[in-house]
């Protein structure tokens, strides 16, 4: 039985999309059957990242009850070197669609939750996928909370920003705990000097664990290469020996055992 994994954060810009794309690509390289869904309907980004025009159907259509989930998936034919299937579900990036999704009422959100929950059957059971990865929008948006409820595992990507740490603490306590969700922390953009030795790294892991009282999957050093790539490079595919890729491989393995 596969897993649904949601990448979430309290604040924007922590690196959820970068991590979810690269973790999906890492699994694809490991011959896993993958589906990556763009649940950030306010700022869709997977279309640009995968340089695809889509197939005329969007995740928006699936949640609106216009089509079944298979129609809204783009088959990437696994360009990432593995033998597994690699599907991506895109959020409609048009301003009209973003505006429309922002104006949905509570009844629509309730139905959207039902449709997200039924993905377990259609994607994991019927299509035999190993992982469904949900890239969510930051904070307590309807779409993000729906994704969290539908997921088996929630990974919170945080930075060292004080407001992000406080907000993440509150969010994990007041949201994740209430839904009894398996939760892990990934700290991104950590200054390299904090992780300069194994001893320092271990000390930092303990520090983060004490802050959030949750398992810390990994801490990712701030990398100029990643910033320079500007979201156009899938490191897991294009730079297999890069330290960032190695960290992603560790995260992917930890998710498997989570």
């Amino acid at each position, binding site marked *: 039985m596969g897993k649904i994994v949601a990448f979430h954060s309290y604040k924007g810009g922590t690196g959820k999309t970068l991590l979810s794309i690269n973790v999906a690509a890492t699994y694809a390289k490991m011959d896993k059957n993958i589906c990556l869904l763009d649940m950030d309907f306010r700022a869709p980004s997977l279309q640009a990242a995968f340089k695809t025009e889509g197939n005329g159907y969007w995740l928006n259509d699936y949640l609106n*009850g*216009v089509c079944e989930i298979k129609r809204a998936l783009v088959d990437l034919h696994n360009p990432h070197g593995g033998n597994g299937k690699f599907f991506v579900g895109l959020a409609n990036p048009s301003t009209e669609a973003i505006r429309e999704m922002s104006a949905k009422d509570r009844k629509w*959100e*309730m*139905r959207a939750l039902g449709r997200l*929950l039924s993905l377990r059957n259609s994607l994991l059971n019927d299509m035999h996928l190993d992982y469904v990865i949900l890239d969510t929008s930051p904070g307590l948006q309807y779409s993000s909370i729906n994704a969290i*409820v539908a997921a088996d595992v929630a990974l919170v990507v945080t930075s060292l920003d004080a407001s992000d740490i406080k907000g993440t603490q509150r969010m994990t306590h007041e949201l994740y705990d*209430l*839904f009894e969700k398996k939760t892990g922390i990934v700290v991104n953009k950590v200054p390299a000097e904090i992780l300069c030795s194994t001893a320092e790294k271990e000390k930092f892991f303990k520090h983060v664990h004490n802050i959030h009282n949750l398992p810390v999957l990994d801490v990712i050093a701030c990398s100029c290469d990643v910033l320079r790539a500007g979201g156009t490079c899938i490191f897991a595919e294009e730079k297999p020996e890069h330290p960032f890729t190695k960290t992603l491989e560790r995260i992917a393995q930890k998710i498997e055992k989570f």
Partner: protein
Amino acid sequence: MRQTHPEIAMVTLYKSLQGKSTRVLEKIANSLDQLNEKIDVLIELQKHSRGGIVDESLTDVLDVMTLLSLPDHLRKTAVTLCKLGQATAEEIAEQTRRARAVESGYLNQLVLMGYLKKERRGRKAYFYVEKEASGEKPWEK
């Protein structure tokens, strides 16, 4: 010593009465079980209606914000039902590992609060959020 005809008749009559009384006792036991179950539901409903947890502004829509506002015990039942689409109290109890009668009480409370719907099919009561969520596919219409 061989039994006479009246004795055989008496034994047959006794056995027949014994069989009937067993069936009657079984029926009474079943009825008591059902009654017990209904009393459990009423006790649960009464227990939870004291807290004033029904918020008029949330009535009818079981979205994630409503789920967050529910007390823990009802949230667990409601989330489990959302995941299953539609279910009996027994099916919910299998998932939550709580007693069937307890889940029956919680489900009925959620029905009274307007978040769930209930439908009887034969002897079983099925609960669901919406028809569509329980398996209907709108794109096939």
